[in-house]
């Protein structure tokens, strides 16, 4: 099962709260974490929740390269493929 951008959104909000700016949320998947107001701890908390729910571990050094929720979904997909290979 591949993780979707909507699932990423759900997990981020459960882990670190909904973004402050409503306009940023309108285009959540392609808005930068900076603009959404998520700092590195929010991403770590999200990654830990992803690992628990999907069994995929994203190393910190890769995690912080993700700029947007869509990037993060892509990262989780490739980490999963790498683990399966």
């Amino acid at each position, binding site marked *: 099962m591949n993780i979707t951008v909507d699932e990423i959104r759900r997990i981020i909000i459960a882990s670190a*709260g909904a*973004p*402050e700016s409503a306009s940023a949320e309108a285009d959540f998947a392609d808005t930068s974490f900076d603009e959404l107001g998520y700092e590195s701890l929010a991403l770590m908390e999200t990654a830990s929740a992803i690992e628990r729910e999907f069994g995929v571990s994203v190393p910190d050094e890769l995690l912080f390269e993700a700029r947007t929720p869509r990037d993060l979904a892509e990262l989780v997909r490739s980490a999963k493929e790498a683990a399966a290979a």
Partner: protein
Amino acid sequence: MTRTVVTGIGALAANGLGTQEYWAATREGRHGLGALTRFDVAKYPATLAGEIRGFEAADHLPDRLLPQTDVSTRYALVAAGWALEDAKVDPASLVDYDMGVVTANALGGFEFTHREFHKLWTEGPQTVSVYESFAWFYAVNAGQISIRHGMRGPSSALVTEQAGGLDALGHARRTVRRGTPLVVAGGVDSALDPWGWASQIAGGRLCTGTDPDRAYLPFDRDADGYVPGEGGALLVLEDAEAALRRGAPDILGEIAGYASGFDPAPGSGRPPALRRTIEAALADAGVTAGQVDVVFADAVGVPELDRAEAAALGEVFGPGAVPVTAPKAASGRTYAGGGSLDVATALLSIRDGVIPPTAGTREVPAEYGIDLVRDRAREANVRTALVVARGLWGFNSAVVVRAWAPDATNDLS
């Protein structure tokens, strides 16, 4: 020298969420104590607490702050926001480095940490929130307030047990004098989860009675410990000139004097530091004992400590020479929140010409020699008030607040 004034108050306690509610209850001596409801407290030796009721964090704070904050930090953020609103300060319109934050905290983020420890032991380390890294921490309130309001000036956190609220105001005044025009300062605490409760019980001073009307009775013949509360107050302190320049709507009073002292080692035979701390604060304010209109006492409600405080007050002021009150009997002791909440209360006493009563206390032993305001508020022209606080292990602090008089020159030396 720069004069430091208070231009805004944000207060919350068991007997009032917000300054207005708190002050209305405090004037009437209406307490907010009762059996603790946050968990099943029946098997614990102490069961009474001053719990804040009806506080929904999501009504006051952005969603982003909820997963990362302990209840005590939520209270601190809300109190800071209210204080800025009260002072009509819009931080975005001021220079970020011209605003500081000084907070005191005695307990840290107990409830948050208790929850994360529970997850650690039952579900494993992967489940522990990354926000535990700072949510427990004594300095987190200063940090979160600083981030939320863009206040990047000198900021500090003080940990001096229950004297902390006064030490924060003293240090904030120092910060203003060093050139930061505005500082949000004070203390807030809360630890009413099972772990926090066990820790408070271990302190050994909690009242074990079950009747909230006869539990926390400072200076009473029947005093038998205190009832812990939660909350406190944050204040906006400003350089008086800067406050006048920006057109602050109200100057509630001046932080005129401050001192802290530390008790000698047990068994040394030397007297506790309280008396000289009070005298140093009066000297710092340039006022004599005779000029003080009211004392807001530390009032632990433990006979030995009440007696020591009454003795220090008697030595400084003379027996029965000054009205003494302890409104914290109605809110419960809010640890580092207590001192700043008392300073807020003293400022409201000055504003309204009324000394709030010590709820509950009926009979003060004659040998204490203090004129304790009991039963109902006393009307009085309050111009100068002394606030006293002590913390476990030897902390003593005192603050003198004074009605604002723009042309006062006695501290311009």
